[in-house]
């Protein structure tokens, strides 16, 4: 500014100085001849012109700026600011923690902990070596050396075998996962030691009880595509939407080319909604005990498999659901793992356990009393088939107690014929056979009952003795639960409540009970079922006295059903389903237990297993003992 001021002020001072040039004029002529030709040119240009030109240039630049300004701020404003935001703004996902699965007493069966996956870019590590600056550094490791350093260091820090890590690092890939689930602290140590390693957020699902209740709870694992933990088996899969919660997000500005969040730039935030905890009706200790006993017994008798269900007699809640096979939820792919839950997915023919349907229908219709005496022949003809008892006998006189207690096929079919197919079919339906129980577990089978209109003459010779129809162990338990609960069948449920992240507990909707029989009928039936565990002499001995528990009257029913031999398409003479369903204490039952064994070679009864589970239940549930002497009624009359 001072300079401009000077140049501005100088011309006026010279302008008046016409004398200046005048003073100089005399001297030019004498100097060299080329002087006069050039002298006029350096004469300072007209400052006013210079000023004008400068002004024009300034104005032009200003105009240009204005044009650009209008373009940037007006015409392309939206587009440019959108680009800028895209470059800068990042939407970060705030992961929602998956809910836990708890047993009825709050013991966790599955819960999540934060974990990290350690990943690397092996190609980048190799390429870094091409950088002369790195290569020329003395003592710089070659890529292979570096990779082996990383593998050994990670192996040491994480306690892993460095072999596979080194293998992954040597692959010519741009993304490898070196360790899928690492404790965050350990992951940080590794990352600080080896800057080439990056970490990614993961969630590790913990199953503290291991394979206990695994077939019910199922398993969840990290899903790469959805960047979220997802249930794949069992309840983890069926209740995935409840457990998963909703991910939140956070819109922030990040420094270009990195994930560093610029502080104070959070524009929008939606907090993650943690998944809801699910409280099951299972009792983990009971579940463990039942699984142990079932597995023991299945192995002892050499059965292919077995399943056991324990229900609360009044609420129909599943206290335990065990299968002889199970799996480790942390590694569901391991060899020998049984992922399915046959207690609800695999129906079987129940055998004599189903005789309770005929008896219930007969009692309900007032057609029979437990003390009624039947003249039972050795066999009975139904349509084109002849059915005989499991033991050969001539004409004998049995009470209805005896027909059930000694499991007489002939006596049952005689009673069934008095009941008639209509009453029988409606009782079967009321007891929930042939229909899904609606339990929350995935893949439930409804079993199968031939439709009433498809019944042939011999069908009604099969169904009353538990052949020609199938049910799951859970359905079998539910059928006896109706008897235990004074005739009202409450469909079994395995989810008791949900607990939100705010701690508010929402009980699961109570299932609608179905009255299958009158309380009187149920009570009478429970008395009759005690005949099965009656340990009388000779012909007064039931089929399952081994199920008896000292101090607790047991009402139950043994069952043996022939399996279908696929070779001949007929019923096999060697392969059986062995079943037992029962309840105790018989007067006011607290527990209902249903058992199924698949093909024990010796055809062993499941009654001893009921005794083992029942004895544990009595102790575990602190059931008061009964002082009444065991019920003894005549089963066979002379």
């Amino acid at each position, binding site marked *: 500014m001072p300079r401009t001021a000077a140049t501005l002020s100088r011309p006026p001072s010279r302008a008046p100085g016409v004398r200046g040039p005048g003073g100089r004029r005399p001297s030019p002529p004498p100097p060299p001849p080329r002087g006069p030709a050039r002298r006029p040119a350096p004469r300072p240009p007209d400052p006013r012109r210079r000023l004008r030109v400068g002004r024009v240039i300034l104005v032009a630049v200003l105009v240009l700026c204005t044009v650009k300004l209008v373009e940037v701020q007006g015409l392309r404003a939206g587009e440019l600011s959108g680009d800028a935001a895209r470059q800068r703004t990042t939407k970060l996902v705030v992961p929602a923690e998956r809910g836990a699965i708890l047993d009825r007493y709050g013991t966790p069966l599955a819960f999540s902990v934060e974990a990290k996956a350690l990943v690397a870019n092996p190609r980048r590590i190799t390429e870094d070596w091409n950088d002369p600056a790195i290569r020329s550094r003395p003592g710089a490791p070659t890529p292979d050396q570096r990779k082996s350093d990383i593998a050994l260091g990670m192996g040491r820090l994480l306690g892993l075998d460095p072999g596979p890590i080194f293998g992954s690092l040597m692959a010519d890939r741009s993304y490898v996962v070196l360790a899928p689930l690492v404790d965050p602290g350990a992951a940080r140590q590794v990352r600080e030691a080896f800057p080439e390693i990056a970490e990614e957020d993961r969630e590790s699902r913990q199953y503290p009880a291991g394979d*206990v209740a695994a077939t019910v709870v199922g398993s969840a694992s990290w899903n790469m595509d959805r960047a979220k933990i997802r249930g794949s088996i069992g309840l983890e899969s069926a209740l995935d939407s409840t457990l998963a919660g909703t991910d939140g997000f956070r819109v922030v500005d990040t420094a270009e080319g990195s994930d560093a969040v610029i502080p104070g730039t959070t524009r929008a935030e939606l907090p993650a909604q943690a998944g809801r905890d699910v409280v099951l009706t299972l009792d983990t200790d009971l579940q463990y005990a039942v699984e142990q006993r079932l*597995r*023991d017994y299945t192995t*002892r008798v050499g059965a292919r498999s077995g399943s056991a269900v324990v229900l609360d007699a009044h609420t129909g809640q599943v206290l335990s659901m065990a299968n002889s096979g199970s799996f480790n939820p942390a590694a569901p792919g391991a060899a020998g793992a049984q992922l399915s839950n046959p207690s609800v997915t695999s129906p079987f023919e129940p055998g004599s356990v189903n005789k309770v349907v005929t008896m219930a229908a007969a009692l309900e219709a007032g057609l029979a009393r437990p003390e009624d005496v039947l003249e039972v022949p050795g066999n009975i003809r139904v349509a084109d088939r002849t059915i005989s008892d499991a033991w050969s006998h001539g004409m004998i006189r049995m009470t209805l107690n005896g027909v059930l207690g000694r499991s007489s096929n002939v006596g049952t079919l005689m009673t069934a014929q008095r009941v008639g197919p209509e009453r029988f079919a409606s009782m079967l339906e009321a007891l929930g056979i042939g229909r899904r129980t609606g339990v929350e577990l995935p893949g439930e089978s409804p079993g199968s009952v031939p439709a009433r209109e498809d019944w042939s003459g011999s069908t009604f010779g099969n169904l009353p003795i538990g052949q020609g129809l199938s049910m799951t162990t859970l359905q079998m338990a539910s059928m006896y639960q109706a008897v235990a609960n004074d005739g009202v069948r409450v469909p079994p449920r395995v989810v008791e409540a949900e607990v939100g992240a705010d701690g508010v507990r929402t009980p699961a909707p109570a299932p609608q009970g179905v009255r299958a029989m009158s309380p009187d009928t149920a009570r009478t039936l429970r008395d009759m079922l005690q005949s099965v565990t009656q340990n009388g002499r000779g012909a007064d001995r039931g089929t399952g006295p081994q199920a008896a528990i000292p101090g607790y009257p047991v009402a139950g029913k043994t069952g043996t059903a022939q399996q279908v031999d696929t070779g001949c398409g007929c019923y096999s003479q060697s392969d059986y389903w062995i079943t037992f369903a029962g309840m105790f204490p018989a007067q006011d039952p607290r527990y209902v237990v249903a058992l199924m064994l698949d093909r024990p070679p010796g055809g062993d009864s499941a009654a001893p297993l009921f005794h083992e589970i029942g004895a544990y239940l009595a102790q575990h549930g602190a059931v008061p*003992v009964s002082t009444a002497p065991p019920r003894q009624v005549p089963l066979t009359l002379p």
Partner: protein
Amino acid sequence: MSTATLTEPRMGTRHAPATPSRRPTSTRPAARPTTTHAKPVEDGKGTAPFVLLIMVLLTGGLVATLWLSTAAAADSYRLDEARQVARDLSEQSERLHRDVEAAQSAPALAAAARAQGMVPAGEPAVLLVAPDGSTQVIGDPRPAQPIAPPVTPPAPPAAPASTSTGAQAATGAQAATDGQPAPAPAGAAAAEDQLVAVPDATPDVDAADSETSPDSAATADDTAPVTP
């Protein structure tokens, strides 16, 4: 402020002749006495404290800014440290929570108990006391069955087990202590094998159901508690 500095000299020029004694206080006016000779006179009086004040204010401001920013930086380090500690602690609590849940699960407790030589208690008998003081034993009291030894040394314990219940309890207890180190390395699979092996070594469980053996089992009750 600029207007003040502009007006003051003018006043100064006017008063300058009246107070010539003050001139020696400044050396600069002497260099240019004609134009600004009077300026420093009033400058000296009105401006110096003011400039000093400004300087003090500026210095104070600078120091305060420096101090604040240093304090903020130090606090941010402390905050960072505290955050790190909080994170470490929350990770530790999560880890401990996980370990506790794993250690108190039914299978882990069963394995730990087995490792200490404990055995499942079996079925208890109940002693019922009537109001008149008489008692009634319900059930069949029996000592807990020791878990059969691991499959590796099967022959010696199996043979006496079937002949005498007292001897069985003794060998079983011995086997339990012998077997103590075995479950730890063998893991869950071996432990399950052990459980499976129980019925093989204890055939009297089934025999008890045949109604003839309860008496012999009862005698076993008297002898067995002595052995452990």
